[in-house]
């Protein structure tokens, strides 16, 4: 990799670092000890076999996972191989050996292997998913079978079937429905119990009540051989609601907040100056560590020897690396770019700045404003009303001396079954989340769409959010008038052709020129012969042997020359082309806009002025960002935080809603409520417009469901309604709700 000048586009290097498994690169050639330390927790006994569990972040498709599976299955002593595409995990059970052979085999296929720590939250969630799937399956199979039994009665129509057969069908249905009502529907009953214990009438209460009431009433009617049975409704209702729960659980599983920031950013081991490797968590204060060029710094400490540039963008948001020499401080998790360094650890793992950011994020989530979903707010009153009505009608008929008072009360509960109401929100979420995924937005939680609609202020991060986060050529200053601007860019581009460095990527002027005899001087620049002249591109002292100062402090300046200077070329992080339009649209829609940046005031104001933003706070640290958001929310704003980096993650935890713009870190993706995968800020607008549409649909659904129930209940109380009509109406209203939600399938109108 060319290091023409000590800088790196942080985003690019960070992405590559993670993708190429920088964390354990030294392990590949280094002694086995480092490798053992790294995978210590990933190999453990599992029953009679040993299990190796690793993460392979570059599994992108089914083909990759099948390739790995096939390769590993063919190896000796393998009992079982399982790959999982969604959480990018490979598990191998084997009977003999150390397990490192499998890691080598996966790496040989061209994949990155990262250690996978046994994570209790993950295990618990997997268990929950499995039990939910079993419940869903039981409800589905049960629903089909009960429908078969019920169909005989429906087909017979008014005349009915012979009482003996009918009783048989009812008993059979009772058996299956009991399984569904008490095994499959357990999550609803438990939720309802929890709600009641907290003196709260949540959505689970009417659901659980409806299932239990319908089942009880049907069972009584089966025993007494009278009235109607609703076993088919019990099963179908449970099944439909479980689908919603299952999907919700699935999205939670993928974006759970279990990832530790340190695990994703820090190497697993570090090398002491003695050559020994040491696990990252047990580095003592005073330990002297080697940090090769291109590696992440493993500890907060002081440089003892070496002269390099260090990328601290994770902490500052600054895209330009800092020069660090002996005696200067470095932070764990930043990237050493050019030259090897020797550092002395000054703190223990728990006190590293990056550990503190990680903790800050965890704490910040507690500040998230309380928010109850619309359906829950309505359910609270609705449930209370239903319960009042049911008990009132029971009391009335009891006083009237009607023996069927209990049965009538139950009928009211069944007829008022809030199927449509409880489906109204989850169905809309489910369709909306699927639609957004197709449009390039990953939403981790459906309630985010309701919260988003409620926001009135947007706080942006600068680098990587309002700007592209990539360097581009922003100016050329000619020093030798024999050359034009075009010549300079053409020569520079051909000199840098083929290098992966951010500066090389910024130089994209095509020409017919050819460069020969190209040399790269690490940390200084590149030289090569173009049109018969040996040009040099890089630091001023490399190009012409004297230290000249750059024209100004904006961006990064590098020099082109041949023994004498020809031109300065300026590189800067550019504002996204769509940022202006997006901000204008938001301003017109009445949002209060502001920008928080870790960058210096000068650069921050320049970009804010470009975009017409007034409210800018520059030079903020991650915890100041959190404080800023808490202050804004305390003054009544409901804030949407839009960011992309680790330094925004904690603030995202506090904000009412948060969106990450094509982040490279998994951690940021997990911290944010939604992630834009499109790398286009315009999607944010689409998302806001769509959230309004989602809320409209949810309101319509709830409105319809409540209206339907409120019309039917009085009829049921007075005994005006034939049960099968009520059942038909119930299904029809549920279908209407589902159909209405399906209108959300297209994100853009």
């Amino acid at each position, binding site marked *: 990799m060319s290091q023409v000048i000590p800088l790196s586009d942080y985003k690019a290097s960070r992405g590559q670092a993670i993708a190429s498994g920088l964390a354990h690169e030294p392990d590949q050639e280094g002694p086995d000890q480092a490798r053992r330390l790294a995978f210590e927790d990933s190999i453990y006994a599992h029953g009679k076999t040993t299990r190796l569990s690793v993460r392979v972040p570059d599994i992108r*498709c*089914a*083909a990759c*996972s*099948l*390739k790995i599976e*096939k390769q590993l299955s063919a190896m000796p002593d393998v009992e079982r191989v*399982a*790959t*999982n*595409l*969604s959480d990018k995990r490979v598990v191998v059970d084997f009977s003999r050996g150390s397990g490192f052979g499998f890691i080598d085999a996966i790496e040989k296929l061209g994949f990155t292997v990262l250690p996978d720590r046994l994570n209790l939250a993950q295990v618990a969630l997997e268990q929950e998913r*499995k039990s939910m*799937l*079993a419940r869903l*399956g*039981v409800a589905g*199979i*049960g629903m089909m*079978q009960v429908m*078969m*039994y019920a169909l005989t009665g429906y087909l017979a129509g008014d005349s009915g079937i012979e009482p003996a*057969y009918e009783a*048989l*069908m009812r008993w*059979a249905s009772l*058996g*299956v429905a009991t*399984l569904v009502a008490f095994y499959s529907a357990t999550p609803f009953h438990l939720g309802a119990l929890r709600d009641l214990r907290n003196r709260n009438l949540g959505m689970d209460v009417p659901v659980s009540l409806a299932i239990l009431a319908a089942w009880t009433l049907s069972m009584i009617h089966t025993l007494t051989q009278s009235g109607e049975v609703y076993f088919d409704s019990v099963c179908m209702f449970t099944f439909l609601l479980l689908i919603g729960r299952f999907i919700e659980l699935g999205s939670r599983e993928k974006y759970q907040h279990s990832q530790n920031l340190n695990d994703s950013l820090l190497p697993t081991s570090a090398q002491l100056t003695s050559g020994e490797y040491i696990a990252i968590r047990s580095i003592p204060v005073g330990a002297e560590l080697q940090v090769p060029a291109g590696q992440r710094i493993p500890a907060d400490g002081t440089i003892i020897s070496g002269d390099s540039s260090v990328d601290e963008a994770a902490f500052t948001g600054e895209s330009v690396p800092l020069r660090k020499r002996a005696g200067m401080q470095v932070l764990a998790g930043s990237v050493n770019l050019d030259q090897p360094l020797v550092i002395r650890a000054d703190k223990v793992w728990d006190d590293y700045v990056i550990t503190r950011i990680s903790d800050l994020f965890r704490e910040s989530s507690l500040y998230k404003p309380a928010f109850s979903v619309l359906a829950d707010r309505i359910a609270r009153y609705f449930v209370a009303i239903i319960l009042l009505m049911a008990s009132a009608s029971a009391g009335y008929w009891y006083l009237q001396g009607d023996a069927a008072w209990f049965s009538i009360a139950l009928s009211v509960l069944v007829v008022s079954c809030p199927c449509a109401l409880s489906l109204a929100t989850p169905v809309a979420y489910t369709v909306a989340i699927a639609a957004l995924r197709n449009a390039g937005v990953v939403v981790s939680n459906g309630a985010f769409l309701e919260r988003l609609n409620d926001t009135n202020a947007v706080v942006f991060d600068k680098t990587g959010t309002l700007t592209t986060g990539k360097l581009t050529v922003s100016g050329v200053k000619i020093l030798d008038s024999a050359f034009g601007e075009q010549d300079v860019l053409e020569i520079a581009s051909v000199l840098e052709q083929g290098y992966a460095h951010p500066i090389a990527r910024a130089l994209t002027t095509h020409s017919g020129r050819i460069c020969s005899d190209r040399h790269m001087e690490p940390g200084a620049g590149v030289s090569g012969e173009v049109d018969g002249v040996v040009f040099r591109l890089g630091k001023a002292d490399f190009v012409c042997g004297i230290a000249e100062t750059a024209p100004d402090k904006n961006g990064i300046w590098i020099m082109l020359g041949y023994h004498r200077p020809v031109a300065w070329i300026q590189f800067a992080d550019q504002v996204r082309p769509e940022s202006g339009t997006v901000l204008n649209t938001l301003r017109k829609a009445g949002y209060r806009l502001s920008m928080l940046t870790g960058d210096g005031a000068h650069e921050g104001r320049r970009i804010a002025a470009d975009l017409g933003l007034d409210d800018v706070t520059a030079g903020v640290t991650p915890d100041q960002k959190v404080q800023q958001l808490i202050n804004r929310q305390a003054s009544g704003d409901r804030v949407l935080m839009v960011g992309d980096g680790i330094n925004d993650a904690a603030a995202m935890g506090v904000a009412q809603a948060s969106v990450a713009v094509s982040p490279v870190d998994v951690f940021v993706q997990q911290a944010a409520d939604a992630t834009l995968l499109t790398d286009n800020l315009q999607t944010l607008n689409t998302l806001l417009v769509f959230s309004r549409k989602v809320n409209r649909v949810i309101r319509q659904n709830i409105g319809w469901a409540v209206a339907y129930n409120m019309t039917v209940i009085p009829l049921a109380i007075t005994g005006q309604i034939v049960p099968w009509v009520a059942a038909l109406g119930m299904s029809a209203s549920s279908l209407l709700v589902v159909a209405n939600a399906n209108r959300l399938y297209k994100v853009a109108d």
Partner: protein
Amino acid sequence: MEVIFVLIPVSLAIILMALWSFIWSVRNDQFEDLDKEAYRILFDDKDQDSEEVKQEQS
């Protein structure tokens, strides 16, 4: 039609077997990664392929 008194219990027994096998397969990770299985058919074993080709040619 009295046979229905036998057939309905039989159907219940079949249902129980279906439920048992479903729960068994969930517990044994058969549903762990549903995306992958759809593609498995597209990735036939290479060696087998070439042998089949050879057989076809001969």
